[in-house]
């Protein structure tokens, strides 16, 4: 597809000439760089609770963000009205950051290379609504059928279809169609009128709706959520203090996202406020650890053909055999530090300024048998699932909350334990990784990453790993 057939050209009659005019308006006060980000977002969501479809919502938002960079300064404005007057006005407001006569030669717009990591013909958002309701209802039925102790089930299904167009004063012209869908199941179970426990599972990605009929069915997520709730019914108090911790494969990769990922975002490092600042080439993890951020994995929730600044996403090595290799760049940071783009400039919407962000962050598989890793631990904690996490990038301290974990006693998983927070320090924690399994798994596709008030979809992954020392926040 070329530009003239693209969504914004076809639906709103936007021409290259328009884009070049808006960009020159944006640079009219002397900025060094300007870009435009057009976004059209259609969303829908379904909520089932108590076996009733309690909510079905759909809607549309659209707008354009205009950014001007002058040295280290950024001016930003947006409009939810795509009329030429409104876009020009936004460009003028963003231009105020710069001062002096226009000085930059605009590069003629050239369309980027085309690839499609998510060749979705009919996005879930474009399918018949009823089909999606039926899928959500299947999850409700399956979760209730799993065990009589299940007494409450909530199913949330949400999808969106985002059309974006990026045009920049250095000549980038890129557009993309980004489908995304996710199903989540929340289950409450209780035994003999005792206190309830919860379980949660979900997943999705940039796929056709068929994904939920063949790859990951509503029943799959429902059973997993119900299983977790039932397991928790027998949970005992979590231990407190330093333990040997084994992380199971998949979603526990959120450790990497918090412990290293955020600390490697170039904005923090350019400013010298990250615990990882100035540490490229240094050892920050055991030599068993190689950590990758890869925005190019087909269909994954964190993947994008182009980032929100028009650069192709790529596979970036963050840590190689324990040595810190690189940061994740956005336009501003790579301009200032003269670093290569990494395709990591992302934003929540046209109302937001792009920042360096992660895509799909994971650790490469090692050689150990996962069962053997558990057997190697005389006493510790095995974490199969997590809720969220967060990090203070300056001190490097991070936490993540275990939602399903088990005591390891004499190399065997014994009792499930109650929710507990795990805490560590980014540049230190991964030095204690002593075993890495051969079972790398990416998460099911539910991650949302928040940074400075902006949320973006991300993925994580990890093989089974043993960490010899980590503080567990239990009460026992």
């Amino acid at each position, binding site marked *: 597809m070329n530009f003239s057939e693209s969504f914004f050209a076809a639906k709103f009659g936007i021409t290259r000439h328009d884009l070049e005019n808006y960009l020159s308006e944006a640079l009219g006060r002397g900025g060094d760089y300007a870009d435009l980000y057009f976004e059209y977002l259609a969303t829908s*969501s379904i*909520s089932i609770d108590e076996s*009733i*479809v*309690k*909510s*079905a*919502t*759909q*809607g*549309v*938002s659209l*707008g354009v963000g205009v950014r001007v960079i002058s040295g*280290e*300064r*950024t001016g*930003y*404005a*947006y*409009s*939810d*009205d795509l009329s030429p007057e409104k876009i020009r006005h936004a460009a003028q407001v963003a231009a*105020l*950051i710069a001062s002096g006569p226009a000085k930059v030669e605009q590069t003629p717009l050239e369309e980027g290379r085309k690839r499609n990591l998510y060749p979705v013909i009919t996005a879930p958002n474009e399918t018949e*609504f009823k089909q999606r*309701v039926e899928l959500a209802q299947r999850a409700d039925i399956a979760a209730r059928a799993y065990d009589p102790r299940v007494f*409450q089930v909530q199913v949330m299904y949400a999808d969106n279809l985002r059309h974006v167009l990026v045009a920049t004063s250095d000549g980038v012209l890129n557009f993309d169609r980004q489908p995304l869908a996710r199903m989540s199941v929340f289950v*409450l179970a209780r035994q003999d009128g005792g206190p*309830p426990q*919860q379980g949660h599972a979900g997943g999705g990605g940039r796929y056709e709706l068929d994904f939920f009929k063949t790859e990951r069915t509503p029943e799959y997520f429902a059973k997993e959520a119900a299983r977790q709730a039932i397991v928790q019914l027998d949970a005992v108090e*979590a231990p*407190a*203090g*330093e333990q040997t911790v084994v992380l199971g494969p998949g979603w526990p990769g959120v450790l990497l996202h918090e412990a290293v990922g955020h600390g490697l975002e170039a904005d923090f490092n350019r400013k010298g*406020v990250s*615990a990882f600042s100035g540490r490229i080439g240094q050892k920050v993890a055991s030599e068993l650890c190689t950590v990758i951020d890869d925005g190019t994995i087909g269909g994954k929730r964190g993947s994008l053909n182009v980032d929100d600044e028009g650069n192709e996403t790529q596979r970036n090595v963050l840590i190689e055999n324990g040595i810190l290799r690189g940061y994740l760049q956005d336009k501003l940071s790579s301009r200032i530090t003269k670093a290569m783009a990494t395709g990591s400039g992302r934003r929540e919407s046209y*109302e937001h*300024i792009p920042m360096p962000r992660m895509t799909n962050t994971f650790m490469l598989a090692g050689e150990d048998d996962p069962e053997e890793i558990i057997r190697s631990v005389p006493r510790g904690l095995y974490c199969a699932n997590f809720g*969220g*996490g*967060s990090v*203070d990038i*300056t*001190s490097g*301290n*991070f*936490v*993540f909350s275990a939602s399903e974990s088990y005591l390891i006693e004499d190399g065997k998983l014994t009792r499930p334990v*109650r*929710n*507990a*927070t795990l*805490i*560590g*320090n980014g540049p230190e924690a991964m030095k204690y990784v002593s075993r890495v399994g051969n079972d790398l798994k990416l998460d099911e596709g539910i991650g949302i990453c928040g940074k400075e008030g902006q949320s973006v979809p991300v993925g994580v992954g990890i093989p089974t790993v043993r960490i010899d020392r980590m*503080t*567990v*926040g*239990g*009460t026992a």
Partner: protein
Amino acid sequence: MSAALVSRENLPELARDIINQAIAAGATDAECTISEGDEFSASVRMGELETLKDAGSRGAGLRVLIGKRMGASYTSDLTPDGIRQMVHSAVDLAALTTEDPFAGLPEPDELGSIAADLHLFSDETAKLPTEERIAMAKRGEAAALAFDPRITNSEGGSFDSNVGGRIFANSRGFLGSYRSSSCSITVMPVATKDGGMERDYWYSYARDYHSLDSPESVGRKAAERAIRRLGSVKVETQKVPVVFEPRTARTLLSSICDAVSGTAVYRRASFLAGKLGEKIADERITIIDDGTIPGLFGSSPFDDEGVPTRRTPVIERGVLKSYLLNSYTARKLNLKTTGNASRGITGNAGIGHGNFFLEPGTKGAEEIIRTVKNGFFVTELIGTGVNIVTGDYSRGAVGIWIRDGELAFPVSEVTIASTLQEMLNGIAEIGSDLEFVTSVSAPTLMIGEMTVGGR
């Protein structure tokens, strides 16, 4: 009429028109929310302007009922076409949902708005020139950088403001609107010592800029907080008294607020479900939700279903008195709405809060700390480890160790854990220092014993 021509003054009329269109399209009841707002943000770093953002947007949302079936939609396109599509979209969806016997709007006699001026809006901030906003951000950051040589870096200072309006109409004759404004100064300095680096922040938040603390005092406070974190250590795992300063005590109140939400309660997804009228906390605990206090950030003349806000005692002397309810959860629980409906521009109303606060005690923070021989003063909490279903509580914490009644040395990379049930019953002291900084507020609070997880 193009979108550009729907002026702000005409938005209430547009809301009423949307309701009429929905009824004409077959809805038996309808609710429309319109929001409009302008945001401004200026941030500086190391004395230089870094980011300037200035823009506005609007959106409309609709929720319809056809009998007991519900559908909802929203749009940012306020042209007649955009509105028509939104209306049809909501009506079409209602055909696909299942009947919910409890679905509905508040009763006509429940609808209304507080007549008194709640002082939510000031146009003073809007008049403040951009240069002065930038200057305030710079002054705040400069004060932090000048405070101590150990402040070596900064994540910046910023001045932010928001001005916006909310319009709500329903098919039972309610039409209301109000505007609100806010602005803030935030400073986030970085302190360094012996290769260790710590950041902290402080801010001042007000309806108009005259009421903000001086940028200098915000900057100094932020610097002081960052410096006192330097050289922090991890302590041994132990059970000790834990003192929460107001900024962290507030997060405990937020968890209680989540636990008394009507939605969590009717789903039995709260440890406080089924406990109405029971003693669930130490008798010194009284928690109030009040959406009617002029000028505060949790105040509004009506909730997001058109029900007037009010003062609701939630816990009185340790006894659970009320949940926070909208009309739906009230019907589910066979109670009356408490005017706590909350939503974005579309969908079913969830539960929000007004000004949700813990009534203060009589002791000052220092006096409370003096009573502690060996304990932990918590200044920051990280992570999401509060489980409202079970009450399990486990979070990452930063703070200062208390030794013989004095703040002795900084502590980080530890956890604090207990259950909300035990914490509510194990309150040892409540401070006198309640300040309404945000819509959830608490004074200094001491819990008799929690597990600190460390070495």
